[in-house]
């Protein structure tokens, strides 16, 4: 397990920790700066977790609200991004539980139709010659990769997003997800294997791997 740095060390090395300390001291501009720095990053991760853009935006704002509410008792005990994504993980988990209770499990994004249908629909269009092939390839790939990620279980998906988009170390991911680094390693390894199984047919011969949504 990684050694714990003192609060001073995080304050010295992490500019976002310093900003958060300013928020603690009442600097509204510092809070807005943090929002600007992290809004896209949070949205990207949350959107892939919950599958809906508008919900992800709400959750992003919820995360910032919780950050602001926690400002007075904030003490740097980790990198700011680790702390922030821990909150995001909790918010996303709550949201998924609520969605499950409401029987509104939409894993895929709603904008371009269902994930499995979109790449297939575009392949059909390409076959009819109505779409430029180059654009079709990119869109099709995107749809299939998105479907492959959506087919991961929640923990694998979170670990993948934090590793890929946030470039977090196993130790940081472990802190966000309340796991051990070894568990994170296992999780990511299985996630890579799942992604490989889902994507390799597409890479090898252009065949839609027939990913089905849970």
């Amino acid at each position, binding site marked *: 397990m990684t050694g714990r740095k003192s609060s001073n060390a995080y304050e010295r090395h992490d500019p976002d920790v310093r900003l958060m300390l300013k928020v603690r001291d009442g600097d509204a501009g510092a809070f807005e700066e943090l929002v*600007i720095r992290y809004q896209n990053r949070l949205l990207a991760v949350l959107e892939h977790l919950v599958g809906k853009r508008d919900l992800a935006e709400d959750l992003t704002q919820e995360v910032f609200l919780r950050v*602001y509410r926690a400002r007075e008792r904030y003490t740097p005990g980790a990198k700011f991004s680790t702390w922030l994504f821990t909150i995001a993980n909790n918010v996303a988990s709550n949201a998924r539980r609520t969605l499950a209770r409401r029987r509104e499990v939409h894993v895929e994004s709603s904008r371009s139709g269902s994930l499995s249908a979109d790449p297939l629909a575009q392949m059909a269009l390409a076959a009819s010659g109505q779409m430029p092939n180059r654009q079709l390839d990119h869109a099709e790939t995107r749809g299939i990769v998105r479907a492959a990620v959506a087919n991961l279980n929640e923990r694998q998906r979170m670990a993948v997003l934090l590793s*890929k988009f946030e470039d977090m170390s196993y130790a940081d991911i472990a802190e966000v997800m309340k796991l051990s680094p070894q568990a994170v390693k296992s999780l990511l390894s*299985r996630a890579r294997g799942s992604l490989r199984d889902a994507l390799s047919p597409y890479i090898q011969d252009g065949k839609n791997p027939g990913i089905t949504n849970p």
Partner: protein
Amino acid sequence: MNESNMPPKDPQKIDEEITAYLDGELTGETLDKIEKRLASDSVFRARLQDLDRDWMLLDELPQSEVNQNFAATTVEMVAIHEQHPDNGNYGDSAGQLIQQWVFVGFAVLAACLAGFILSTALAALLSACGLLTTNNDAVLENLPVLENLDKYKLAENIAFVQAISHIDYFSNTPTDASNTLPAYLDNIAARKAHIGRMQPTEKTRLLNAQEYFMDLNVDEQSKLRDLHQQLVDNPNANDLNNALEQYYEWYKQLDPREHVELRIRSGNDRISYIRTLLTRPQTVKKLSFTRRDLEVLLGWLRRTAMKHRVALLRGANQKEQREIQQLSSTERQRRLATLLWKQWRKNGILQEPTFDQLSYIAIKEQLSAAAREQLDKQSSVDEEVHLLLNGVRSRAMGGPIQKGTRNVPGPSAQRQPSPEQLKDYFKRLPEQKRAQMKRLSREEYYRELLRGYYRDQVEFRNLRPKHDRKTNLGPTGETNRTRRNSKNRSPINNDPPKKQ
């Protein structure tokens, strides 16, 4: 982590070690063992390539961006919640929230539905009568111009585009399918379908382009529309569009001073200046990238840099190490990619322990056909990679200069002012101007400072572009508002404007 002396044989364990290796988590003896096995075991190596290749496909996932008001609405929302702390949070006591709001929700929904039906019917009626033009109609109408707005803004007129198409550098690159004018934009239905297929980030960019376009005066809008129409109608439309695309890609890699020089010149003067820039040694051998090529290459550089971050940091001086430690994760990646880039340019690639030929081959497969063709013409892998590195020069350096760092100087960037020069220039400004600049955001302050410094240096006070309020545009045409929401904008200097 697995600290056994022998590499694992269990497939799951093997995958775990490969994953940890790819994620840069292995150190010491374990790392040595895995690397030795990679060098000698082709099956093991193939497995690594499989896992890495599929992982890299995750780069295809769209990176969502918020709209430009998101930060403001978030801060406002937080302020409102602070005033009314009893408002429930999403997910907290969800059952109670549902009970409290379900009746209100139904009532609001019914009212909204009625209003929606009424307004939609009214809008349809007015649209049918030609009395109402919505923003969506404007986007549909201007779509071909909006999608090419960044390029069209760089072109004065069709004569300029024709002139650059006669320059070998912009015309010798084989026409790429993505550089042809798309035929499906000919009618409104096709345009609607095209927009419908867009990702959220693409739609956001389109809306930003629409907003910028609508802010222009009528003459400027007409000029851009006319340019588009002249390009479409030209018998050599595809060649002209290709040349303009190549010019745009080349323009993005220039430094800010060269952008200014290009903007203040026109006609033959501008063409001459372009030829002058092109004959500089570092631009003679340049690979033409598509946007996707650049994304692939930059992603590869950053991943490789992160994998070898310990070694790269060890090679940096103490000051640089301290600076890098203070950066956020994304900024650190960029900075490490810059260090890697410098190292690869300085040493022979094949002698570089950080260079993995297998991963380079995998990356090359993901590049466009045009880029691969040009790379295949080189006589060695070393030359191929140097050609690639020349092409990603400005991107690998991380774009805007990060806090607490110096911009890594490229050949033309050596003329950029030092922080001391900028400070001296600021001190020489009139009191009123200094006070005005101090009221700007940090980003705007440094942008204005740099612009003023260059104006002072090149003495073109009287030749400032007509629409000065639009000169905040960067090479990709982003406005200040768009840039404010971009996550990686930092000032040139780490000193904020000092209050006096």
